[in-house]
């Protein structure tokens, strides 16, 4: 589904290299986790894949469903079925959460040539999905993420994911800032979306999220590249021993 080949990226403003040849293949239905110390390039990878500006790809490629995506705009990538759950969801005063969700959903449908949802149809679906994530009607009416708690913001990300039904979901430290109960709720939301046609890339610092969202493959990222890959037990190894052994092995 998503194939990343020798991806090299630097910051646009300064010639600082962040990614040094990332190789990653994610097949349909798989859940991959990326772990790694601070500054290893995990979030940058998620931003570059979803099309945030400020980065320059110097080498390599990323193909999603057979299409080279690095030249596409963020909305085009989203319409192809790529979704990034933000580490820090952005507050947007003046834009209602419902308006935002409906505009996003209908923009994607339009670009895929699918008929847009009417207000009533949309409302029915969003209410049902919000209920599963314990998001109340009041939260839906408010401006996007404005005045939301950390947990509410993350649940709102998962709600967007549930509404947009992407094929490839990238979760950038979705567990950060969440208490145990909130993390469980978010993980349940993610697990409910797991299917043979949908893949996940879960970026996290901690193993505990992976207790709830059990990955097929775990990658360790350091210094802008993947230095080791393994099964779910690799995450446990990191949890017990930290990154130092793995980094020493790599160096």
């Amino acid at each position, binding site marked *: 589904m998503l194939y990343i080949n020798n991806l090299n990226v630097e910051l646009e403003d300064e010639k600082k290299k962040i990614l040094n040849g990332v190789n990653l293949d994610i097949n349909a239905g798989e859940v991959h986790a990326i772990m790694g110390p601070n500054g290893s390039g995990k979030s940058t990878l998620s931003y570059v894949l*979803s*099309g*945030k*500006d400020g980065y320059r790809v110097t080498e390599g490629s990323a193909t999603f469903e057979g299409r080279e995506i690095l030249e596409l*705009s*963020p*909305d085009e*990538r*989203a*319409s192809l079925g790529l*979704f*990034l759950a*933000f580490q820090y*969801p*952005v507050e*947007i*005063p*003046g*834009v209602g959460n419902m*308006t*935002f969700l409906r*505009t*996003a*959903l209908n*923009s*994607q449908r339009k*670009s895929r040539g699918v008929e847009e949802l009417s207000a009533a149809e949309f409302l029915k679906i969003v209410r049902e999905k919000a209920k599963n994530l314990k998001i109340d009607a009041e939260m839906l009416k408010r*401006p*996007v993420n404005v005045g939301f708690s950390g947990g509410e913001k993350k649940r709102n990300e998962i709600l*967007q994911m549930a509404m*947009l039904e992407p094929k490839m979901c990238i979760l950038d430290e979705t567990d950060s800032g969440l208490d145990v109960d909130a993390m469980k709720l978010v993980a349940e939301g993610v697990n409910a979306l797991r299917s043979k046609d949908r893949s996940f890339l879960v970026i996290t610092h901690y193993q505990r999220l992976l207790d709830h969202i059990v990955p097929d493959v775990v990658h360790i990222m350091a210094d802008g590249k993947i230095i080791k890959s393994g099964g779910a037990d690799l995450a446990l190894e990191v949890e017990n021993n930290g990154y130092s052994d793995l980094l020493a092995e790599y160096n």
Partner: protein
Amino acid sequence: MPKTNLTEQKISNYSFPTEASWAIKSRKSALNWLETTGLPNRRDEYWKNTDPSYFNTINKPERNKIDYVENSIFENIDRINIVFEDGYFNASKSDELLLKGIEIDTISVANQKDNHWSANYFGVLEKSSQVPVERTLASLNTAFAVEGLAIRITDKIDKPISITYLHTNDTSDVLIHHVIKIEKNASVTILESGGVASRSNCLMEVFVCENAEFDHVRVQGRSHEKIAVTHLFANLLKDSSMKSFTLTVNGKSIRNEYVVDINGENSKAHLGGAAVGDRGFSQDDTIFVSHNNPNCESRQVFKKVLRNGAKGVFQGKILVKDGAQKTDGYQISQGLMLDDDSSFLAKPELEIYADDVICSHGSTCGEIDNAALFYLTSRGIPMAEAQDMLVLAFLNDAIEEISDESIRTIIGGRLKDWMVKRHKS
């Protein structure tokens, strides 16, 4: 050209009306002030950021592209429609003016009558607002405007009174002067829309009596050549309220002055404005709100979206006089630049002589938030649409100042139109 010569030339452009003695007296007083003070120029503190020569000149305005579509912005609102054409009242296009709770005359009729109610009001607020800042374009208006309405409201009027200014002559240059009195416990909504003229100087004096309400929504601009100066003078007695919102879409130079005098306890004055423009657009809101009594509230919410070399000016002042305790004064002015060529010049002022008040002001100038833009586009919303959503979100606080939801929707629709056109240009 020296100030006096210019003023003399401008004055000689108009003929002095022959009317009832009270009207002559008001006009002479205004003319006298204009002659001694002179028209504004760039050296005047209050005209530093907007070039007054557009309004001062005796040359004919440039030919304007006339857009008839604008005339109907409030068309779907159930309203009493009064039509002006190139600054002249048009009775045949207007609705019947004999209505319960409303007394309407044109000022040309009112000013001929010895005992018309407006005799004690015409030019009064214009005159009292000449200190501390001279507003001689308003004096010019009082001295020479022969068109306008004298409206007296004696009841709660449900239907808005809509004044539609048709613009059909492409070099028209007009003066319009309205006098509005809302009697005790009465209320009214006044809507203003339309192209007015190529160059216009419109003035409105509003007397809001005890426990009365004045609601005002105006839409101006449209063509890129439009030149307009407006003055809204309001006097509020106790327990009264006023709300005024202006949407400006394009124009060459548009200056809106507001002078609000709060002269009774427990009164409220809310002023709001949303302005969007590009190219040679210059739009200026100059505001003076004076709290003369305790326990009153005022708000100023002005937002401008500027693009492609446009200029936005905001000069807003709240004066809280000695004794006006428990005043709640608020002012915000914000400019959103859609490119690097535009400018926003703001001068927020507070002058407070009472010691138990809440007054705040803020002014910001910025560009579209890239983080928000990425967030929206990453969800599949195309760039142009995402930008529009953020522009509307920016203007939202100002639009929220309009109390009627259907009017808010109309204003929002006009702004969306502007944005769609923006993507095409």
